């Protein structure tokens, strides 16, 4: 029977990572050259891992679906990256960053991983500065910080509202250097379609050249998945159009466990949906909650008047505005964590206080910040975000408050990994958003960039050696081995099957229907009945997809509809996994809110005695439900409490 071994090192929490590094196995420089590592994905995690492994002397093959590694969706992260530098002298420390992250994750993350994350956070900032990342600075020439949700210190480093872009370009430049040196070979416009397992170990991938349509085989002594999250299961999300969960599902089907799939983050500050041809949702950075105040009208008749276009925000006097986050959570105010802020917005809108024509929006108002700081200061801090908002909505946020609403943004769940970031398949690793490891049931703002770069720069380059040290005698294998042939055939069969359906529904139309089911039943508020309905509907939709999808063109050439269809076939499976996981988890925690489990005040109600575990789902076959394995979460350092952001 499968057992879960998280391989957490012994010793006190603060010593675990140091102890691990002191005792792990290493690969000597001459042997590194003989070892091939496949890294799939070029986002913050993938690019930083490929660059660091290349710099160490390994032979790296790095794949991305876009035309350049610099396009990966990490580029769109706006607000910032956390680190425990305590440059502000406001009481920050490694412990406090660790504690805030554990608490922010609603006590559903692994202590040892989170502590390590906090420990390496400071090195990330040093690394990025050395790469030439132009972080914001004070007039004295030192680095500036701002605050993000779920923290009472200012520990977030930023580069205007384009922090993700600058960090990714830093990692991309480090990667480019390694390409120049010949340690990394790039495969752009390639999509992984399966992992190859030989004698129980990951030994390569099957990938499709998206330009020629050719299916190709690649060998690696180890395979690293850094392919991001699966938020696009919902069709509408803040993810890029190409973001997908297919690599995760491919390895899941080969035996890697999928952990906590139901933990999806719904970000409170996104531009509301405008209509049914909308293709994606745009995030407005959480950093805006530093200075913007969130409100809806106090009086229902005012809300109605705004919804019908008879009144505008500026017609509502201050005393008739309900700053509901400041009212409900005095200690954290507008900077409560994302899950709390999202649910509070939903609660107001459900009661009829929404402020646009659909009733699904709340105000984020900068009037007060402009009064306090002046327009210039506000423009300097948030100018590019304001510009982005105006381009999309045609409204000027300097004059009228922004309208915002929660949207799917990030997935905390993902491929299960142990302390070494290795999946349940030996030699197969998962990093960044693709794994489940550090954020528990809810991720704090500015922590995704931290985790992606921590994994890629400072964790994986160590832990992968502990595995590879035993592989130095293994020669490069031929891709003509039967395992490669068989994996390629599986991919080819799937493509042939999809192309042969020739039904009448487009890929997007089925994806939109999947999105509706997910948002309705596996969204912000979930119930037992709703999840049962979701599972039933998802089975039907899957059947319809496999019998009625239409893909034009041919498979052996560039075919964007085929690419989308392959991804959708996996989103349909992920949707089901999310629903079954949510159904199993009879509690509310972080991003998973089961309406049956809430306090009288409407806050999430955990059931620690029953659900203090990582839910690891094991694939059992095409037509059977997955098997649930549990990794218990032991809290040695922190006392589990009900999260309190009120006082």
């Amino acid at each position, binding site marked *: 029977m499968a057992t879960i071994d998280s391989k957490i090192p012994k010793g006190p929490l603060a010593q675990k990572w140091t102890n691990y590094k002191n005792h792990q196995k290493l690969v000597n420089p001459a042997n590194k050259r003989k070892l091939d590592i496949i890294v799939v994905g070029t986002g913050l995690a993938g690019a930083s891992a490929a660059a660091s492994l290349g710099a160490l002397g390994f032979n790296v093959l790095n794949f991305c679906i876009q035309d350049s590694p610099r396009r990966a*969706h990490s580029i769109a992260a706006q607000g910032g990256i956390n680190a425990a*530098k305590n440059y502000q002298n406001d009481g920050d420390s490694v412990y406090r960053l660790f504690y805030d992250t554990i608490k922010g994750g609603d006590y559903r993350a692994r202590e040892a991983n989170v502590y390590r994350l906090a420990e390496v956070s400071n090195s990330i900032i040093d690394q990025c500065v*050395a*790469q030439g990342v132009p972080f*914001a600075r004070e007039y004295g020439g030192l680095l500036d910080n701002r605050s993000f949700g779920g923290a009472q210190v200012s520990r977030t480093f930023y580069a205007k509202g384009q922090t993700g872009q600058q960090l990714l370009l830093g990692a991309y430049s*480090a990667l480019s250097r390694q390409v120049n040196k010949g340690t990394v070979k790039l495969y752009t416009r390639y999509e992984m379609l399966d992992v190859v397992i030989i004698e129980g170990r990951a030994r390569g991938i099957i990938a499709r050249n998206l330009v020629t349509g050719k299916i190709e085989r690649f060998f690696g002594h180890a395979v690293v998945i850094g392919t991001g999250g699966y938020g696009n299961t919902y069709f509408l999300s803040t993810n890029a159009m190409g973001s997908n969960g297919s690599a995760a599902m491919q390895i899941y089907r080969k035996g890697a466990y999928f952990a906590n799939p139901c933990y999806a983050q719904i970000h409170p500050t996104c531009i509301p949906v405008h209509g049914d041809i909308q293709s994606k949702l745009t995030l407005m950075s959480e950093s805006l909650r530093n200075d913007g105040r969130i409100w809806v009208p106090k009086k229902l008749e005012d809300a109605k008047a705004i919804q019908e276009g008879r009144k505008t925000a500026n017609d509502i006097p201050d005393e008739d505005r309900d700053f509901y986050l400041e009212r409900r959570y005095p200690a954290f105010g507008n900077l409560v964590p994302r899950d709390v802020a999202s649910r509070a917005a939903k609660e107001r809108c459900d009661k009829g206080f929404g402020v646009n*024509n659909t009733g699904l929006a709340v105000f984020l108002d900068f009037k007060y910040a402009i009064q306090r700081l002046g327009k210039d200061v506000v423009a300097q801090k948030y100018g590019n975000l304001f510009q982005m908002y105006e381009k999309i909505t045609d409204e000027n946020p300097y004059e009228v408050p922004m309208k915002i609403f929660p949207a799917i943004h990030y997935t905390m769940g993902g491929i299960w990994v142990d302390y070494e970031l290795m999946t349940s398949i030996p030699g197969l690793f998962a990093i960044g958003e693709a794994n489940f490891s550090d954020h528990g049931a809810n991720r704090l703002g500015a922590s995704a960039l931290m985790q992606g770069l921590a994994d890629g720069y400072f964790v994986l380059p160590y832990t992968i050696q502990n595995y590879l040290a035993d592989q130095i005698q293994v020669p490069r294998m031929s891709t003509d081995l039967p395992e490669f042939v068989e994996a390629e055939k599986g991919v080819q069969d799937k493509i042939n099957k999809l192309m042969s359906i020739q039904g009448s529904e487009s890929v997007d139309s089925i994806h939109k229907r999947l999105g509706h089911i997910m948002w309705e039943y596996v969204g912000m508020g979930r119930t037992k009945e709703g999840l049962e309905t979701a599972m039933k509907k998802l089975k039907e939709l899957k059947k319809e997809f496999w019998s009625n999808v239409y893909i034009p063109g041919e498979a052996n050439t560039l075919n964007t509809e085929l690419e989308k269809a392959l991804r959708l076939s996996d989103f349909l499976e992920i949707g089901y996994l999310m629903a079954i996981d949510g159904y199993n988890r009879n509690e509310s925690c972080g991003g998973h809110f089961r309406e049956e489990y809430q306090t009288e005040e409407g806050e999430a109600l955990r059931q620690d005695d029953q659900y203090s575990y990582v839910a690891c789902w094991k694939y059992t076959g095409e037509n059977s439900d997955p098997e649930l394995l549990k990794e218990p979460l032991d809290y040695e350092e922190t006392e589990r409490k009900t999260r309190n952001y009120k006082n």
Partner: protein
Amino acid sequence: MGKEKELNITLKVWRQRGPQEKGAFETYQLEGISTESSFLEMLDVLNEKLVKERKEPVVFDHDCREGICGMCSLYINGHPHGKDQEVTTCQLHMRRFNDGDTITIEPWRSAAFPVIRDLMVDRSAFDKIMQAGGYTSVNTGGIPDANAIPIPKPVADEAMDAASCIGCGACVAACKNGSAMLFVSAKVSQLALLPQGKVEAAKRVKAMIAKMDELGFGNCTNTRACEAECPKAVSISNIARLNREFICAKLKD
């Protein structure tokens, strides 16, 4: 919002099967396009319609759809990313068009960016320029504290402005010479301004310029079309800095 209207438009779209094949414009009619939708959502509607008619959709590059990944790349009515200032194609909205308009859509027009299919082009030349020297030569780890070297705020801000380049290639597409000077100068400037990048500034500028020339990009003749069309308003003063850096580096040879 609330000012939503519906447009009927005519599209003239460049269709080309592959790099070696001959392309041509195809004309399509679209009805009832919401002014609230984005330009790419309008193309989604076109593609959905084509798929329904069992035809192959128009291929175009796009990803983040929020103006930062640099993937989208359309030449719209004679302008890269359309006529609006400081927007990428994905941020362009249909409210900027009128009922009855004819919209012409072409791929980036540059010899250094060959067409792959329809509106999708190959910009891997940009990656090659970056690989030639667009970095600081530091390995992972063993780095002094981030605050060890103070950097004056105006310098950091200027570096940030240069670094905001998204690598979309609009500058090359806009330039009558097909020059990549704005792209190269943005990276050279960012790194030459910062103390961390200054160390290798001379080597970097020579390597990146040599690679740019080798890949067939043209020269700069100061027409400033690149600056006018850049969705991130990267300033042409970076090209002046690039020239300065290059001449200084060459003089030291």
